[in-house]
């Protein structure tokens, strides 16, 4: 059963009808085939129209779609010989942050990802993608490992944010995030981050202060969730839609503000409709960025990365 978002209702109805007709089949088969073709065309058109003008709030829902490919899907499809490495060497392993060694198009890399999980069991296991301090400390350790062996870092970000918990605070959540940002910025190797779903605040930038930050077409990247922003500034969480617009959290906005470097197009109807296509597009985008970064010496690489962040926010939308 496909999961449909509220604004996808008309498409859902059309596709429902198509399925029904297909199941009827046989008796006057030819008429049914014609009707199916007609409805399919209509559904495609509806999908195209809907997705061509998604609002910021609709994109937020697409970015959080339960069937959207997760970090683990990108790792599985794009990374050969993936060998997960665990733990922060101090307290625990945090399943919200995936990390390890592997090969991207034959080249040895360190991969990182915030993992939301795909069903109830795995969502609980990965804490819904909300990392604790040990997750960010693991990330930092692996980025430093990448530096020691001159391996590029690929990071797949999909998180609503860092976990807000008592223990997380007691173990230094803020410090762990700060050090992870620092590790990204200080890495003597290329760091490519891809915001594949939700880029939630500090928990996202912790793994995304890279040379190149790519963002999927319907991903969001924000300093606060629209709901959180609405409940603070509007004092009404129901204003999340207005907050989503105001926050400028879409890939187009981020690109225009020069806060991300490139936008990766998604298949029609969003990455959840054709995960393999979306994942392959991300793979191609990473492959296009890597050679240029690998050509730079570590000093120039780091200086350029720093300069990029220092230039950010010097101009607005105008």
């Amino acid at each position, binding site marked *: 059963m496909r999961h449909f978002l509220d604004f996808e209702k008309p498409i859902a109805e059309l596709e429902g009808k198509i399925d029904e007709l297909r199941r009827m089949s046989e008796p006057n088969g030819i008429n049914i085939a014609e009707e199916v073709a007609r409805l399919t065309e209509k559904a495609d058109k509806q999908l195209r129209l809907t997705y061509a003008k998604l609002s910021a709030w609709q994109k937020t829902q697409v970015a959080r779609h339960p069937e959207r490919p997760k970090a683990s899907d990108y790792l599985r499809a794009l990374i050969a010989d993936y060998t997960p490495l665990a733990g922060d060497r101090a307290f625990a392993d945090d399943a919200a942050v995936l990390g390890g060694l592997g090969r991207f198009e034959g080249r040895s890399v360190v991969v990182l990802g915030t993992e939301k999980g795909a069903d109830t069991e795995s969502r609980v296991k990965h804490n819904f993608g909300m990392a604790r301090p040990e997750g960010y400390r693991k990330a930092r350790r692996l980025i430093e490992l990448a530096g020691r062996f001159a391996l590029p870092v690929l990071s797949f970000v999909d998180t609503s944010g860092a976990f807000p918990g008592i223990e*997380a605070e007691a173990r*230094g959540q803020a410090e762990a995030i700060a050090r992870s940002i620092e590790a990204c910025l200080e890495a003597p190797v290329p760091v490519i981050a891809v915001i594949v779903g939700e880029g939630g605040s500090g928990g996202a*930038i912790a793994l995304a202060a890279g040379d190149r930050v790519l963002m999927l077409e319907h991903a969001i990247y924000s300093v606060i969730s629209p709901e959180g922003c609405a409940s603070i500034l509007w004092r009404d969480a129901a204003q999340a839609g207005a907050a989503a617009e105001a926050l400028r959290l879409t890939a187009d906005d981020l690109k225009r503000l020069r806060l991300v470097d490139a936008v990766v197009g998604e298949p029609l109807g969003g990455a959840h409709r054709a995960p393999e296509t979306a994942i392959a597009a991300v793979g191609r985008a990473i492959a296009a960025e890597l050679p240029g970064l690998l050509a730079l010496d570590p000093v120039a690489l780091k200086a350029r990365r720093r300069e990029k962040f220092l230039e950010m926010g010097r101009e607005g939308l105008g």
Partner: protein
Amino acid sequence: MNWLTEFVRPKIRTLLGRRDVPDNLWVQCPACEQMIFQRELEKALKVCPHCAHHMRAGAAERLAWTLDEGYAPIELPKAPADPLRFRDTKRYADRLREAREKTRHDDAILVAPGTIEGQKAVVAAMDFEFMGGSMGAAVGEGLLAAARLAVLQDAPLVVFTASGGARMQEGAISLMQMPRTVIATRLVKEAGLPVIIVLTDPTTGGVTASFAMLGDIQIGEPGALIGFAGARVIEQTVREKLPEGFQRAEYLHEHGILDLVVPRAELKATLARLIGLLRVRQIETAAVDATA
């Protein structure tokens, strides 16, 4: 960089402008509810003489209390105002204007070079009165300016933090101040200079999760609320009552996150002592230079 020449001729604005209150004013301590004579409270650096509660202080007061020269902030580089043309129930542009009128500062950070008991330093202080001390591009620029000035003057960087976190009205631009301010700390550290962070009430969110946790020395003021996530968000998430003293400076000290919790009255002397203890290399280099 015009701000670099500007600090030579600091734009001095009078601190007393905001204090034109009658001398006989009484203030009630929010902790013990005792009445305190205003002049008495000012003399005690806004620490309650009855219960030692540390009241919140503005950026101007921080500079005045810390630097031998008193309050003399430099002009800071400008950041674009309202880059997203943000509007909630109110325009961000209007909120900014109101905050400027209220505080008489351009944004939520002040920076001043000077000496602390004779020890050279650049001091940056955040102002909670200015939109909750929230960090947008202007605060990021301010901190970077402070870092560059510290490097230029071969002086340690001391930062007093007070912030509710990122400035939502600048969207992801405010988020990017996290890596930008992390870079600021790197600039100072790479020059072999100390970064000392003094976390004051309250310091939370994106400020805590960036430069504020990257000091060589981390100091907290007694009772200061310091954390990443807000207490309410945590309560709603874990559905547990928060422990006594949770996210207070003493709690962070116990959990190994702060080096020291220092009462306000001892802060200046502590900073001077720490800088003196850390800057052995500078003194030895100077001695070698003198004999050469």
